[in-house]
């Protein structure tokens, strides 16, 4: 038997032993134990070191609010830091380690910080690291010097660096009623709503449903509350309209009754089943939410309240009743309210000696006196704890007489020998989600607590969440909330009968015992009562500033323990009542959320891959693929030993020498159909399309509404009322949105539909002097001669037995044809073209060669149509119709868009025969030490096999006027400087004779 485990009791399975390690030491526990309860059962009192002072810390709580016992769970190379030991369910092989200590938890070198005392008070960093105004550590240099050491000495757990192999998922859920919390109120709400036929989700952050029913020792309907809870859960499980989510923390309440929750699916398992995620992020859209989130017991603020062995009273009760573990053998309780008396009785029943109940109230009720007597505890009314004793475990405490009205201590100190001190400073409803939902909490002077605000979204509160702390109230409110949420009528049926210990829910308004020594308000961030008063003295009057200056209630605590005591101390310092000081707004997340769960199925797979119909062929035939947006496209089809430049030069040269073929399936393709399609295109493009003959294509340019160039491409007239628009690959989505916007919003009277048909067609562009001969050898059903298929003509035929549509147009500057087939036949047609091209030495080419040939021709792409250039800048002003208005025509002649000093498209030739780089600047005078006076920049560059030179396209001030002049490239980032000649952007075949044949 472990030292603190009771002989009987608890919900653990004593027949099943679990083996785990903490800081390398082996321990055992039972199924049903948390890491906290199992270690406590093994006699462990020291769980962590505090944030700043490295003070030894033990368990404060038994639940999600635990601020001290934060551990790191190791799984292989992966570390998950800052998990409350109270929320870790043990399993065989669990490895957990403590945090923020060096070299060990017992002997921590950082504990020297305790000697720093007042120096390390609130604002320490702000005050200390402003830095001297002169000298080697001037300004922030002092901070930078110290930062490394400070970061090692202060903080919480360390995140790991190993990749997380775990799986995460997202789940979308819809329900009529979401019930958050499964204590008696939540269970009743879920049951009532489910009985009405509503779709119900019940989320419980702990492993087991039941909440306080699991440890209250009360009876409901004549049975132990825990059994009643189990029975109710069983009833809910049988309903098809109920989804039960244990281990699920609802952590965010957003607009439209959308809530975020995190389910810990396999964190408690030694091995996850195949495909089972570690955690699941639930996005829940709820008709109505029932908030039955209970309440947190508050610590009292007094010297030494953080010593290991000092614990919240209900937590000790819970360890005893739910886990069969006693926090100590000689227990004292310190309280300002009645609830601790029930805890005293429960601990006595579990086998502990309750040596004293110290109550700040001088006037304790007869009922509480009876409970104290039942616990065989000495009742010390009108007393307060003024000190605790011990090192890494509590050995005793000191008390003095106390006046709850004035806060004054009097009389001699008295020592009490105890190894556990349980405190209760009253209860705060867990209103985090309600606060996130929108409204401001309201102070209740009787409960001495902030109660939930009036709902601004569709939620209903029930139970302790509303400040109704008795189980009978919780059950009644829960049922009413469930009925209301499900749209049912109020029920006159009797509610379950509760037998519970008596108790007044209202505490004495005592939060702090002012005596000598450090009294902690925020245990997680080492914020003391003196820190709060210091902030006040230094002028921080707003509660929001107090929070940020002292770090009170920050980190994972989020005010769960510290909020109300901190505000009370601040209010007293300000001489104002608490409601006038106000409270901070709780923000999501309620508890820490793994980044992995938010990434969910995108974890490790950020974006989908978009593949052309011929993708597998490219891979099988040696293509090196290139990511272009979501698309994957061949960059080169390299031969063994070839560099990228050698490959693209070979591919481009072979294309111009005989023929080449490239996959152009990625081009955006939009079907523009309807009686007004031609009129619509006239408005969309700068040039005219209504005059285009059926069976012909035309190059078009679009402007944005502000007159800047937007996109270009060819559009094919397939029928009188049917066009196939092509766009650049990158802009396909934007153009589609652009067209839909104008049709839906600006010109709804036009009878036109636009449909993305990008994926309907596989496209292969075959170009070069032998392109027509290759086509002729494999196409049936149409001729491809100049008469049948002139430049910009369209023909229909078959290749390899499937229909194809061929348009004669060119991006490479060679005689070229784009061959479109149904995407499902793409590879078949592609392979037929490759086969037909073999006698002609047809090569496949990738994006690099495509880019090279377009630069040689001086065609523009997204590199030049970059959102800053106009049609005139790109020498496309010949496309700006003067006969009709079009999108952008009203704005394109603005002064700034026609200014003579605008950047214009030019060509560049490197005179030193060295490669140029995109982004490099053009200057008239070279000054490597002080580059300045840029004339413009390079947009695209390559080695031109046609010219035998390194060339580039650039946007340069003066543009055409500089043709034939010399300048320099100035690229200090890549240390590339050298002479260039500015020429026309049409480097190759400027009259188009090769293309037109």
């Amino acid at each position, binding site marked *: 038997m472990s030292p603190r485990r009771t002989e009987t009791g608890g919900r653990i399975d004593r027949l099943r032993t679990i083996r785990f390690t903490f800081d390398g030491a082996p321990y055992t526990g039972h199924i049903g134990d948390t890491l906290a309860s199992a270690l406590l059962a093994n006699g462990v009192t020291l769980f962590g070191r505090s944030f700043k002072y490295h003070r030894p810390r033990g368990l404060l709580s038994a639940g999600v609010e635990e601020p001290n016992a934060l551990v790191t769970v190791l799984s292989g190379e992966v570390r998950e830091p800052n998990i409350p030991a109270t929320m870790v369910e043990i399993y065989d092989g669990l490895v957990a380690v403590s945090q923020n200590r060096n070299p060990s938890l017992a002997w921590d070198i950082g504990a020297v910080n305790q000697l720093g005392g007042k120096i390390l008070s609130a604002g320490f960093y702000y005050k200390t690291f402003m830095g001297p105004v002169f000298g080697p550590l001037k300004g922030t240099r002092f901070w930078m010097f110290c930062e490394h050491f400070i970061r090692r000495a202060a903080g919480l757990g360390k995140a790991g660096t190993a990749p997380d192999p775990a799986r995460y998922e997202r789940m979308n859920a819809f329900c009529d009623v979401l019930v958050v919390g499964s204590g008696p109120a939540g269970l009743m709400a879920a049951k009532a709503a489910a009985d009405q036929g509503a779709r119900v989700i019940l989320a419980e952050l702990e492993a087991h449903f039941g909440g306080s029913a699991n440890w209250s020792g009360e009876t409901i309907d004549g049975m132990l509350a825990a059994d009643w809870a189990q029975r109710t859960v069983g009833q809910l499980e049988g309903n098809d309209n109920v989804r039960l989510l244990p281990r699920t923390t609802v952590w965010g309440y957003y607009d439209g009754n959308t809530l975020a929750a995190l389910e810990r699916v396999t964190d408690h398992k030694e091995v996850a089943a195949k*495909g089972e995620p570690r955690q699941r992020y639930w996005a829940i859209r709820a008709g109505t939410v029932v908030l039955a989130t209970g309440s947190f017991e508050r610590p009292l603020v007094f010297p030494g309240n953080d010593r290991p062995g000092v614990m919240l009273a209900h937590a000790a009760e819970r360890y005893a009743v739910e886990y069969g573990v006693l926090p100590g053998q000689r227990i004292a309780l310190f309280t300002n309210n009645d609830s601790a008396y029930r805890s005293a009785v429960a601990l006595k029943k579990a086998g502990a000696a309750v040596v004293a109940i110290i109550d700040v109230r001088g006037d304790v009720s007869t009922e509480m006196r009876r409970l104290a007597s039942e616990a065989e505890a000495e009742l010390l009314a009108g007393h307060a704890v003024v000190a605790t004793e011990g090192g890494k475990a509590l050995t005793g405490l000191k008390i003095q007489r106390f006046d709850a009205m004035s806060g004054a201590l009097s009389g001699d100190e008295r020592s009490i020998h105890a190894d556990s001190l349980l405190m209760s400073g009253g209860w705060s409803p867990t209103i985090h989600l309600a606060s996130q939902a929108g409204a401001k909490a309201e102070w209740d002077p009787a409960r001495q607590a902030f109660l939930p605000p009036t709902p601004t979204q569709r939620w209903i509160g029930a139970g302790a969440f509303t400040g109704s702390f008795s189980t009978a109230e919780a059950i009644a409110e829960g049922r009413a909330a469930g009925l209301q949420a499900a749209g049912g009528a109020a029920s006159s049926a009797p509610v379950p009968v509760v037998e519970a210990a008596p108790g007044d829910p209202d505490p004495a308004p005592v939060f702090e015992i002012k005596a000598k020594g450090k009294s902690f308000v925020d245990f997680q961030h080492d914020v003391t009562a003196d820190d709060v008063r210091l902030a006040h003295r230094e002028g921080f009057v707003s509660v929001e500033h107090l929070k940020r200056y002292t770090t009170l209630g920050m980190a994972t605590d989020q005010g769960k323990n510290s909020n109300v005591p901190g505000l009370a101390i601040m209010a007293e310092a300000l001489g104002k009542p608490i409601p006038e000081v106000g409270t901070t707004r709780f923000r999501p997340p309620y508890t820490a959320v793994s980044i992995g769960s938010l990434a969910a199925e995108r974890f490790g797979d950020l974006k989908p891959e*978009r593949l052309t119909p011929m993708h597998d062929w490219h891979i099988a035939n040696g293509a090196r693929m290139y990511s272009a947006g979501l698309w994957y496209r061949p960059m080169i089809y390299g031969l063994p030993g070839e560099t990228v430049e050698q490959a693209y030069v070979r591919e481009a040269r072979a294309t111009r020498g005989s023929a080449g073929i490239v996959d152009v399936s990625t081009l955006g393709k939009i079907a523009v159909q309807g009686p007004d399609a031609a009129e619509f295109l006239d408005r969309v493009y700068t040039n005219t399309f209504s005059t285009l003959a059926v069976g012909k294509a035309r190059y078009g340019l679009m402007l944005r509404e502000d007159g800047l160039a937007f996109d270009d491409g060819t559009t094919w007239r397939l029928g009188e009322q049917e066009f196939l628009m092509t766009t650049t690959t990158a802009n396909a989505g934007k153009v589609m949105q652009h067209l839909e916007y104008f049709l839906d919003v600006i010109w709804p009277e036009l009878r036109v539909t636009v*449909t993305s048909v990008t994926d309907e067609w596989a496209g292969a562009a075959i170009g070069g002097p032998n392109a027509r001969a290759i086509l002729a050898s494999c196409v049936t059903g149409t001729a491809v001669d100049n008469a049948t298929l002139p430049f910009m003509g369209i023909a229909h035929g078959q290749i*390899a037995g499937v229909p194809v549509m061929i348009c004669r147009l060119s991006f490479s500057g060679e005689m070229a044809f784009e061959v479109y087939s149904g995407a499902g036949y793409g590879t078949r047609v592609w392979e037929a073209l490759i086969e037909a091209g073999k006698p002609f030495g047809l090569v496949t080419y990738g994006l690099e060669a495509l880019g090279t040939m377009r630069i040689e021709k001086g065609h523009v792409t997204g590199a030049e149509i970059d959102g800053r250039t106009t049609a005139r800048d790109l020498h496309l002003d010949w496309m700006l119709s003067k006969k009709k208005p079009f999108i952008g025509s009203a704005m394109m002649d603005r002064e700034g868009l026609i200014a003579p000093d605008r950047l214009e498209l030019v060509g560049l030739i490197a005179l030193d025969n060295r490669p140029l780089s995109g982004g490099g600047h053009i200057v008239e005078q070279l000054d490597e030490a002080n580059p300045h006076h840029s004339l413009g920049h390079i947009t695209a560059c390559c080695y031109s096999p046609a010219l035998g030179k390194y060339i580039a396209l650039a946007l340069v001030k003066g543009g055409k006027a500089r043709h034939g002049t010399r300048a320099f490239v100035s690229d200090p980032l890549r240390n590339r400087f050298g002479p260039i000649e500015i020429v026309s952007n049409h480097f190759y075949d400027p009259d188009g004779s090769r293309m037109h044949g």
Partner: protein
Amino acid sequence: MAEQPLPERQSPLEPDYHPGSHGNFEHGVDVILSETRPGSILQLGAWPGEEKRLIEVIRKVTGLALPDGAGGGASSGARAVFGFAPGKFTVVDEAEGLAATFAGVITPAIGTLTDLSHGRTAIRIAGPKAEWVMAKFFAIDFALPAFPLGAGRSTNHHDIFAQIQRSGADQFDIYVFRSFARSFWKALCHASEEVGYEVQ
């Protein structure tokens, strides 16, 4: 001369389409995944005010009567139709050639017809956990009362646009862009591992 039948179309899923049981299937499979490979997938659009005429044309050609209301649909096994946007419908047929049938009856006065038979890939998910797996992808209420039999929805999974039709009590047909289909298929298989799945 009789027309030669067209060759079989290449599936975009091919290298990642592995018939058989996968994932956590030791205790049985809870979803069945398949590519249905319909011969025809069409998009029909009616001009404002012409929706009822188009619905009538659809009924005459396919025999499927569309219910009133957005997202309504119907399926007969071999054919299916559903509205996916105001005045816009997806029509599916196991057989090829449906576009040619419609081409003669959808006049310019009614609306437009766009053939997407190659451009969309049809994936079916069926089984008791179909709703569960679908909920991992789409922020849509898949419960039968909210998403009745035959009804269709337009939605997206991150960057992947999808149209979904409920074709059975526990069966959905998902239409995605062909270029995204393999990526979506892999994600669907991955998400189905938890419940055990079979590819047919």
